[in-house]
């Protein structure tokens, strides 16, 4: 019953799409609806990069063009049928997406925006100049695809596009809810932690771009047939900006948002062609926003200062519309003005805004999403993989005269460490003595200037963080690095990413392998949450958890990696006394499963009560090592901590 209800909007959409060509006679409106669907497909893909991975891409107009031209060229030069051009467009564009991702990998934010802009510009220039292939500025004419020997009618093609859109919707939805979607969000929230959970940021950024480009290629191909004519000028940078506007305006991380955004950018130019219609719509928007603001003010949700500028903006727009004689010339200005309003006042898009507004008006508090409940925890699940007592006391990690130099500063100066299996090894020292630097060297975030690190007799120097993580070294961070916008449960599921073997096909078709892996992972994640006492907060976003709980969640996430060696960087910092007691219980319990620890800590009572061995660093050098009590009495250590 629940299931039927949640599928109701989708069913309604399908019925509407089938019915549209039957009831709407005018081919112009069918074509408009078709364009909206095609843009929606592209925006599904763009949303993966923008919404989930959190990167700005201005290259999607270029990718869209590559998709269109792949179809156009194959049709024009080789006469390929539609069932061959669609996959070809997807594959070719996906390859270009991979090429775009290569320079994009090392850069973020504004650099990435410029890189993608440059990519889009190059694509447009090449399409324009390579006349032997693309017919250059003249463009390519196409006909609607054939179906069983006859050319499709406009309605039939509309149904084809509608069917593909629904398919795309289902596939995207499954992708972003799978381990892949979680990896995308994780690398957005904290790339460092993502790598240290064995989820390679490098790899998943490429995958995100490739998938996103594939959708752009599909949309481009359908667009070419829909317009029946393609030319280079369509795929300019303004279209790329328009796509971005659509994503933000509709709402990120929402399929409905993508559809709304697509409808807006398709209908907006039509709207702006007709000055009278524009005047009416601008007035309606002004009235709605003003009324909304008054309503919000009366319910004391917001302050006059906050609503003043958007209200002035929309009222100004309405006034401007009556002042203008012709609208066509000012189209781009209005469009730019809308971007400004959306960027600052509608950051979560129409869908996000509607949600918060609805919740605020009805006075409901935000209900947490997700179906996991504390009740369905299966206590029989073996949540910590016991490393067993194999070779307790043998050497697990060996640090050989590691030197880490930043310019003239030697953060670590010829430090040796030897960590025995099944023990808790404390690492202490005053601030700035190199403890966290050591953690970063061990997990591959820094590559040491000299020296070697052997883990289970293999050198880890030069391996990437995610390779090291997968080989069995998990860590927590001094300044908590959770995936803030993801729930506690999802955070742990990212740690369990290594348990998934299923590929894109498994996910898209929901094959048994994927379903089984997802179910097992969820059970284990709940068990891990229960172990650290967070099962009631499973569906809470990590950034909303209190600090102490965040630290515990980090430990649980690290455990999900099935580590043999667990590095804890100041786990007790900022914890209250009862919390510390709980932490000690957890550490001992994990140790009993045979897992080895390196523990950086400033709370001496914690260090003294759980550590088997303690090493002391000062100014990058090891000054003492031994049993806790011995170290505590060491002259040099006292000197380092208290001075003089």
């Amino acid at each position, binding site marked *: 019953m629940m299931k039927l209800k949640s599928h109701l909007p989708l069913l309604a959409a399908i019925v509407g799409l089938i019915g549209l060509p039957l009831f709407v006679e005018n081919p112009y409106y069918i074509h408009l609806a078709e364009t909206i669907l095609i843009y929606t497909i592209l925006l599904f893909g763009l949303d993966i990069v923008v919404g989930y991975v959190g990167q*700005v891409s201005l290259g999607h107009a270029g990718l869209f063009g590559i998709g269109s031209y792949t179809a156009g060229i194959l049709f024009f030069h080789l006469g390929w049928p539609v069932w061959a051009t669609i996959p070809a467009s997807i594959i070719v564009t996906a390859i270009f997406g991979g090429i775009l991702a*290569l*320079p*994009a*990998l*090392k*850069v973020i*934010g*504004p*650099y990435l*925006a*410029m*890189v993608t*802009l*440059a*990519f889009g*510009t*190059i694509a447009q*220039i*090449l399409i*324009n*100049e390579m006349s032997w292939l693309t017919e250059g500025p003249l463009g390519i004419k196409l006909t609607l695809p054939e179906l069983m020997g006859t050319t499709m009618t406009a309605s039939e093609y509309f149904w084809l596009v509608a069917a593909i859109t629904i398919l795309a919707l289902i596939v995207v939805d499954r992708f972003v809810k799978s381990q892949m979607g979680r990896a995308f969000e994780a690398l957005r929230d904290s790339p*460092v932690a993502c790598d240290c959970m064995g989820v390679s940021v490098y790899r998943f950024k490429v995958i995100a771009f490739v998938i996103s480009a594939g959708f752009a290629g599909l949309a481009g191909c359908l667009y070419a047939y829909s317009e029946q004519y393609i030319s280079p000028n369509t795929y300019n*940078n*303004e279209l790329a*900006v328009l796509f*971005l*506007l659509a994503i*933000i305006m509709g709402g990120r991380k929402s399929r409905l948002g993508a559809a709304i955004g697509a409808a807006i950018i398709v209908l907006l130019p039509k709207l702006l062609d007709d000055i009278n219609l524009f005047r009416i719509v601008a007035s309606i928007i002004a009235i709605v926003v003003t009324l909304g603001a008054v309503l919000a003010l009366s319910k004391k949700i917001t302050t006059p200062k906050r609503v003043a500028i958007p209200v002035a903006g929309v009222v100004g727009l309405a006034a401007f519309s009556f002042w203008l004689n012709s609208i066509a*010339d*000012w*189209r*781009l*200005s209005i*469009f*730019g*003005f809308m*971007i*400004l309003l959306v*960027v*600052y006042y509608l*950051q979560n898009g129409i869908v996000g805004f509607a949600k918060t507004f609805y919740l605020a008006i009805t006075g409901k508090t935000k209900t947490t999403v997700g179906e996991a409940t504390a009740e369905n925890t299966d206590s029989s699940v073996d949540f910590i993989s016991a490393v067993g007592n194999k070779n307790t006391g043998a050497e697990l990690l060996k640090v050989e005269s590691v030197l880490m130099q*930043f310019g003239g500063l030697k953060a670590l100066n010829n430090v040796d460490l030897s960590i025995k299996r099944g023990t808790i090894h404390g690492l202490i020292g005053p601030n700035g003595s190199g403890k*966290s630097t050591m953690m*970063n060297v061990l997990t591959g*975030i820094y590559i040491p200037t000299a020296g070697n690190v052997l883990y289970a007799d293999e050198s880890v120097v030069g391996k990437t963080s995610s390779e090291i993580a997968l080989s069995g070294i998990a860590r927590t*961070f*001094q300044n908590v*690095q959770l995936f803030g916008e993801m729930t506690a449960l999802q955070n742990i599921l990212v740690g369990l990413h290594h348990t998934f073997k299923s590929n894109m096909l498994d996910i898209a078709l929901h094959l048994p392998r994927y379903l089984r892996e997802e179910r097992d992972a969820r059970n284990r994640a709940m068990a891990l949450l229960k172990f650290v006492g967070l099962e009631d907060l499973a569906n809470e976003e990590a950034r909303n958890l209190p600090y102490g709980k965040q630290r515990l969640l980090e430990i649980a996430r690290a455990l999900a990696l099935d580590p043999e060696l667990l590095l804890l960087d100041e786990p007790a910092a900022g914890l209250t006394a009862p919390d510390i007691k709980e932490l000690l219980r957890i550490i001992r319990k994990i140790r009993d499963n045979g897992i080895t620890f390196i523990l950086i800590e400033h709370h001496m009572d914690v260090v003294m009560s759980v550590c088997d061995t303690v090493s002391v660093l000062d100014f990058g050098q090891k000054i003492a090592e031994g049993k806790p009590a011995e170290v505590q009495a060491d002259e040099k250590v006292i000197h380092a901590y208290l001075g003089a």
Partner: protein
Amino acid sequence: MDMLAQILSSGIAVGMIYAVIAFGFQLTFATSGTLNFGQGEALMLGALVGLTCVDTLGMNYWAMIPVVCLFGMLQGSFVELIGVRPAIKIKSEFGWIMSTIALGIIFKNVAENVWGRDALPFPPPLPMEPMSFLGANILPMEILVVVGALVMMLLVEFFNRKTIYGKAVVATANDRDAAGLMGINTSMVITFSYALSSLTAAFAGVLIAPLTLTGATMGGALGLKAFAVAIIGGLSSGMGIIVGGLILGIVETATGFYFSTGYKDVPGLILLLLVLAYKPSGLFGKSAIKKV
């Protein structure tokens, strides 16, 4: 040999223009970590305002330059106020990227409506007869471009190094929070850096205008390529942008000559992608250590 000299001389003139615009990118990036994606439009507006001064108001070319510089400062402050400051306040990278793009689109559209859609000729202040030098034909205007660009950059550098106001800019660039604690009005410094940045762009506009045509669409490609120069040279290296600008200017002129002018924007952008793929901090930039 003659051809080579010709390509070099034309390439250097174009390259210096890129360097000046890229210099503008560096100014704002240093103080606030933000860039004006509408930098090309700032250049375009400067050129068009200059054209109005010379053509309609009958001003002398040299007398017009300070007016254009003043206009550039106002335009830059406007961009900072509307597009960048709110984004810095809410720490939204996406915000300033999108809003400077949006402002760029608006400026371009306004320019189309005020000055029309056609490219207009800009009356040159110097004779347009080429001079022969080492077998290459060099326009006096090209020499003016190179000299003007260098003087502008040196003036700003001098300001930054020798005056107390410049010290405030440098301090903000080094550490905005610390500068704020020392009583420097950092948000004013950021506005000022935007004013200065658009000033250099507007100045570059009137320098290049007599050599090309002036019109609403002249800015887009220039802005993007200047960004490529800023990246190739490194966003923190003054020497880097001059070298980067020259490399790009010469490569581009050569491509236009040996292949086709249609392809001339391509090598620069590919160079940009390659530099970002292999040395994201630029050829002359220093890479930063990430702290965890």
